């Protein structure tokens, strides 16, 4: 009994100590251990259209955006070493075929075609997961990765190098069936 009371007290006093709960701390899919937190949140085309429309994006940009599949990724380095986010080292596949993340080159090309305003380009840029970050201890990073439309779900293998010089132990986290919800319903 005393132990339970002390445990409760510790929980209340020290937010850093995880407290037992029957509820999951994050929506699926996610990975969490003492070194890394990684949360994956697939977005519907409607969610993305609403987000960018509310920020003044023209219809031509919304059309391009909703023809792709957005997944929001949140990563936190909970270790005491540098963890390298390098999306070039991630492997995505669907039905055995490699899937490429649509990067800055793709988007700049699209935005040039429709002559998207610089302010919209800037906002779009900051909503994307940066391709390379040397995540320091306690540093979070979040943003979207985007894959081509027409994919209902994909396998994501996230590979991370560690250490300032990338010579630490590598980490690999895999997520199966990361979905592109409702994408198939788009015209």
């Amino acid at each position: 009994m005393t132990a339970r009371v002390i445990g409760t007290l510790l929980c209340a006093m020290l937010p850093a100590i995880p407290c037992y709960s029957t509820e999951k701390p994050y929506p699926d899919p996610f990975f969490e251990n003492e070194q890394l937190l990684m949360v994956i949140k697939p977005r519907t085309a409607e969610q993305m259209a609403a987000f960018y429309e509310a920020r003044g994006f023209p219809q031509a940009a919304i059309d391009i955006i909703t023809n792709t599949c957005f997944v929001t990724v949140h990563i936190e380095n909970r270790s005491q070493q540098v963890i390298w986010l390098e999306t070039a080292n991630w492997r995505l596949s669907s039905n055995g075929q490699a899937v490429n993340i649509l990067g800055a080159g793709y988007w700049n090309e699209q935005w040039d075609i429709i002559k998207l305003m610089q302010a919209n380009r800037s906002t779009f840029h900051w909503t994307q997961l940066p391709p390379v970050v040397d995540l320091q201890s306690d540093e979070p990073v979040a943003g979207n990765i985007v894959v081509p439309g027409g994919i209902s779900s994909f396998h994501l293998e996230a590979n991370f190098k560690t250490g300032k010089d990338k010579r630490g132990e590598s980490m690999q986290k895999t997520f199966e069936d990361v979905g592109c919800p409702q994408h198939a319903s788009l015209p």
Partner: protein
Amino acid sequence: MKTHKLLILVFLLLVLPAPGRTADSLPEGVTRINAIAAPELKLDNIDGEAYDLSTTGGHWRFVHFWASWCGPCRREMPSIQRMINQLEDSDIEFVIVNTAETEDAVFTFLGIVAPDLAPLMDSDGLVTQVWQPRGLPSTFLVGPAGNIQYRVLGGREWDQPAYVEFLRGLK
């Protein structure tokens, strides 16, 4: 016996240094960097008044980039307002830069959570790009000589004592 061990653990946790400070006594998320000259920062604020960072030397500047669509920015902004209130008597200058949003979007958000702030408007986002933040929100501490000396990672509870004391102690 088990109870005694738990009580000792509680005692040790109570006497350990408060969380929020790292070993070299920087608050969590604050990173010291090799001083580099602050990039140009010339913008108008939301009231149309011109600002130029290069003309405001001689004291520390808290340069903060944010956008209202960014969740951590939204959560952090009220604590920035409270921190500014707490540091009213210091000579730190708070330079709050909105990245690529309209006046309407900024006014609607700040009017509720931080009505005293008059952010600089980086309307096309190009000034933010030059500063190369690692993401939004992002904060740089610029020293009296105009060099960036600290970078702050992600959103922080700026009104917590660890941050207020750290900023107050900048020389």
